[in-house]
């Protein structure tokens, strides 16, 4: 019977691992949102060539399991002389994944706003940019929010444990092998992920409820 004491002694390690997980999630969500907004806007408003290019990219990236994307950054890029530390590689690959996922949400959000909304704004004397920022984007953003705050990105970070990145799940697995307290440590893992993910779920629902209260509808999740 493992003692509570030895479990507690593991906590600093686990907390450190969890810190890396949160860092990876934060970085990939943060940069992914920035790139996703840019790419999504490009997709929605860009020229035919830009759209075609993005379509090819998004088809390649989203057609690949996350693991394979991470694999590509970890092992394929170094073959061409581009080397990063494990954590940086993980952050890059997860950002790539997040960017294209968010791009799809953004594109969907913008395209879901009826063209008439834009024209109504123009007819009142708004500039193209003004109509976009005042009328189209706020509506697009609102319908996107429930999918954007999706907690899936936090959980997706766990795949990099397969590549030796010392994030939460990796540290947990290591400690399980060392102490054989599989059940206890996995319980801690579950609680910790839930502590982060549940509030995000609640936030997502809140956005959705607010939309409903205004008679608007949320965009279906792009399926992370």
């Amino acid at each position, binding site marked *: 019977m493992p003692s509570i004491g030895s479990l507690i002694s593991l906590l600093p390690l686990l907390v450190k691992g969890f810190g890396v997980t949160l860092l990876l999630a934060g970085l990939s969500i943060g940069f992914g949102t920035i790139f996703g907004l840019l790419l999504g806007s490009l997709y929605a408003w860009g020229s035919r060539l830009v759209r075609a290019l993005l379509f090819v990219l998004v088809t390649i990236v989203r057609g690949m399991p996350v693991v394979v994307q991470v694999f590509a950054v970890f092992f394929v890029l170094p073959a061409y002389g581009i080397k990063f530390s494990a954590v940086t590689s993980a952050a890059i690959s997860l950002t790539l994944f997040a960017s294209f996922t968010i791009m799809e949400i953004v594109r969907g959000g913008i395209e879901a706003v009826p063209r008439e909304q834009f024209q109504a704004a123009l007819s009142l004397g708004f500039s193209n940019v003004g109509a976009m920022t*005042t009328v189209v984007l706020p509506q697009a953003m*609102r319908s996107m929010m429930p999918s954007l705050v999706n907690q899936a990105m936090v959980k997706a970070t766990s795949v990099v444990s397969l590549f030796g990145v010392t994030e939460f799940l990796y540290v947990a697995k290591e400690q399980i092998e060392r102490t054989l307290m599989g059940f206890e440590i996995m319980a801690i893992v579950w609680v910790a992920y839930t502590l982060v993910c549940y509030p995000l779920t609640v936030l997502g629902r809140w956005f959705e409820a607010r939309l409903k209260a205004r008679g608007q509808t949320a965009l279906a999740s792009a399926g992370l």
Partner: protein
Amino acid sequence: MIEIAGLQKSYGTRRIIDGISLSVPRGTVCGVRPSGSGKSTLLRCVNFLEPYEGGEIRIDGELVGYAEHGRGRRARRPRREIARMRSECCMVFQQFNLFSHMTALENVTVALVKVRSLPRAVARERAAGLIDKVGLSARKDAYPAFLSGGEQQRVAIARALAMEPKVLLLDEVTSALDPERAAEVLDVIAALAREGMTMIMVTHQVHFAREVSQNIVFMDEGRVVESGPPGMLASPSTERLRGFLRHLRLT
């Protein structure tokens, strides 16, 4: 004063408007009875939501959408000027097109703040006055999805009026409404007509058009078939209009 002369507009090889001329003096209402295509396109050209290839549209002498460079040459106006001219002849749409993420009051306020650069408090006050004018004070904080079609359309009219346009363009504003809701909207328009608002109104409501307009235009296939004071409906001179009116009485 709006003057349209020899207006031409095509989509690809299809000519939608084929040489329409009409003149709407200030303070008058022009009812356009549409038939087939070209109905809303005319209004969209006046608002320059659609560019036109031939002829001209002038609002108080100013050519809509194009700058003139003498000897009939012209080039598209800078965007800023097009936007300004649009804000002077506001359009009300068949499907209302209220901004769905804003309350009724915000819908009327937003362009005053963003386009006219009025201080928010002043804009809100003016907007509240207009919402009151269309009889919706009690509903001013409702989002469009919770307003009936007639209420939405009245907000849309208030939104256009807030810009204090030289002319109001009404594009089949009652076509999406049941008769009772339509009546609410028509009451608002009739009141505006009494106040001397200049309006071009594309409408199927012949009786209403006759009541409020000084000038009726009957269009078909992108051309003006017949135009004149409302009295012309009693004694149409073209077979096309006679046929249409006969059909209207039967149904």
